């Protein structure tokens, strides 16, 4: 293969462009593409000389024709029917070439972007409210008519979202308990009240950490998998197939997942609380020589049971928020892969955001209630 090249000759009949080398997409370089600029300054249309032209493809033909628009029959073309054929193929597409409109100014683009962002946010809020309403209606239908509930889907969702998440939740909360106890023990020992570590572990784990970390873990684990499962069913037109069969998408896909999380979340939270306290107990035993019996007795006396109930009271709402974020974004997936990815991401981000937001709201409410 040889590189595309050209030479401009001036003869008695006007300028002639002599082409040589291969004019293909692999052999064209900047210089050959510059043919248009080289020719544009000339008066009248130059003639083409193809005698030394090697191979030609549509890229080469395009580079030549966009420079030498209306050249008559080029010299040497008779010998090359393939070249004439390519020119014929490419020429009509160049003639209809219209200039593209000028680009919009940056300030226009900026406001365009902001406007679209606001609109998307408003639509998202509207969709969330709409989804919540439909969910309530679907759950109401299920309660009135329990036979609508899909037992197998419910059990499957409970297993994958609940039982399978148990080990990681237990291990994670165990370490949270140890960290709280270690930090607390050091700090409180310097004040001479190391024994308050028990209260610290009890209140922190029961009231906040167990539920919060369980919820965040489920947001990462279940909200994403709900969104991906439902989203790929949507891409595969399975949801359309359900709809034409008269199967309600909410009954079949959303309600079992929401109920599964609603059921499993308090259980997981309970397991998380136990393992967090065990973590704190072990650290107190090893690092501070506090006997486990003493630890548990003090926990029983000094940490009121209301902290446990406050922690537990958040579980149902957070479970619904997580399942809703996952299912809603799954159903909002469009036909392409990109939207699947972005919907799974936003399901997780939104679930975690809602968890933190509602945890803060709960904290405010319980503070006002002096609990």
């Amino acid at each position: 293969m040889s590189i595309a090249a050209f030479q401009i000759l001036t003869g008695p009949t006007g300028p002639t462009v002599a082409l040589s080398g291969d004019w293909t997409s692999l052999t064209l370089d900047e210089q050959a593409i510059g043919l248009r600029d080289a020719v544009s300054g000339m008066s009248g249309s130059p003639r083409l000389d193809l005698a030394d032209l090697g191979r030609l493809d549509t890229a080469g033909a395009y580079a030549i024709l966009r420079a030498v628009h209306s050249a008559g029959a080029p010299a040497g073309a008779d010998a090359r029917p393939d070249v004439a054929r390519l020119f014929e193929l490419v020429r009509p597409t160049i003639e209809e070439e219209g200039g593209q409109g000028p680009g919009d100014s940056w300030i226009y683009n900026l406001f365009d972007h902001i406007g679209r962002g606001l609109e998307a946010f408003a639509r998202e809020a509207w969709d969330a409210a709409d989804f919540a309403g439909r969910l309530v209606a679907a759950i109401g239908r299920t309660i009135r008519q329990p036979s609508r509930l899909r037992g197998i889907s419910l059990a499957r969702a409970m297993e994958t979202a609940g039982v399978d998440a148990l080990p990681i939740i237990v291990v994670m909360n165990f370490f949270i308990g140890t960290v709280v106890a270690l930090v607390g023990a050091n700090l409180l020992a310097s004040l001479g009240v190391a024994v308050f570590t028990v209260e610290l572990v009890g209140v922190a784990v029961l009231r906040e950490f167990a539920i919060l970390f369980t919820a965040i873990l489920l947001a990462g684990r279940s909200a994403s998998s709900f969104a991906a499962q439902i989203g790929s069913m949507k891409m595969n037109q399975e949801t359309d197939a359900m709809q034409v069969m008269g199967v309600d998408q909410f009954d079949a896909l959303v309600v079992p997942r929401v109920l599964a999380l609603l059921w499993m979340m308090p259980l997981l939270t309970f397991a998380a609380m136990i393992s967090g306290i065990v973590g704190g107990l072990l650290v107190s035993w090893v690092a501070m020589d506090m006997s486990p019996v003493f630890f548990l007795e003090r926990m029983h006396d000094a940490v009121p049971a209301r902290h446990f109930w406050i922690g537990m009271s958040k579980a149902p709402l957070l479970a619904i928020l997580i399942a809703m974020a996952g299912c809603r974004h799954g159903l909002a997936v469009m036909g392409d892969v990109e939207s699947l990815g972005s919907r799974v991401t936003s399901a997780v981000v939104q679930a975690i955001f809602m968890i933190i937001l509602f945890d803060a709201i709960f904290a405010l409410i319980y503070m006002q209630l002096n609990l």
Partner: protein
Amino acid sequence: MNAAGTLPPPVRVRGLRSAFGDNVIHDGLDLEVRRGEILAIVGGSGTGKSVLLNTILGLKRPDGGNVEIFGRDVHDPNAEADVERRTGVMFQSGALFSSLTVSQNVEAPLREHTQLPDEFVRELAHLKIKLVGLRIGAADLMPAELSGGMRKRAGIARALALDPELLFLDEPTAGLDPIGAAEFDQLTRDLCDSLGLTVLIVTHDLDTLYTITDRVAVLAEKKVVATAPVGELEKSDHPWIRSYFNGPRGRAAQGAQRRNERTD
């Protein structure tokens, strides 16, 4: 160009054996595609048409025998880049990258294999988009916004981006309405003639066989049992070929072809 006879054939498959576990799909399969022809591969479901195509494309390793494209083994690492540049593939549903616009899809192979400036690449992509009969407005659409027929046209535009000498089409007319399918057949024939392409089509469409192919290779009994123009295959004694071409659909396509010939 050079005398075609001295060059190796675009595709040569010799003694191919493909198997999944104990399930042997091909055994001693031979196939040769000649330069400049449109060859179709037909065969019943499960005879391994897609496996054969994937093997020729180098996506699947043969369990025996070898596949050469332009005389070079498809699994020869030194030949890979060259083979990739000289072949184009249109997958069944287009296989367009769904996160890129149509124009960016067509630009992708050009950016991968050439050093052309951006602006020129974009203009070339628009040229290909117009060549396959899409409106220029379609260039900035996402694949999800295209109809099935437009998606196939965009797929062929991407396959043609590097001006390949050899084009593979997998079920090009499946899922198109008869008018769209006929237009697509005509487009394939036109591109083949004007760009001097060699085309290998995997198809079920009898109309495609009758209107645009030069030869048809029939897959049956784990090998290619016949390779011949359609007219000759009609007269074959092979039971599967007879039921294929002389079944009700085959006769309808033959009839349509005869009528066309009379009016031409």
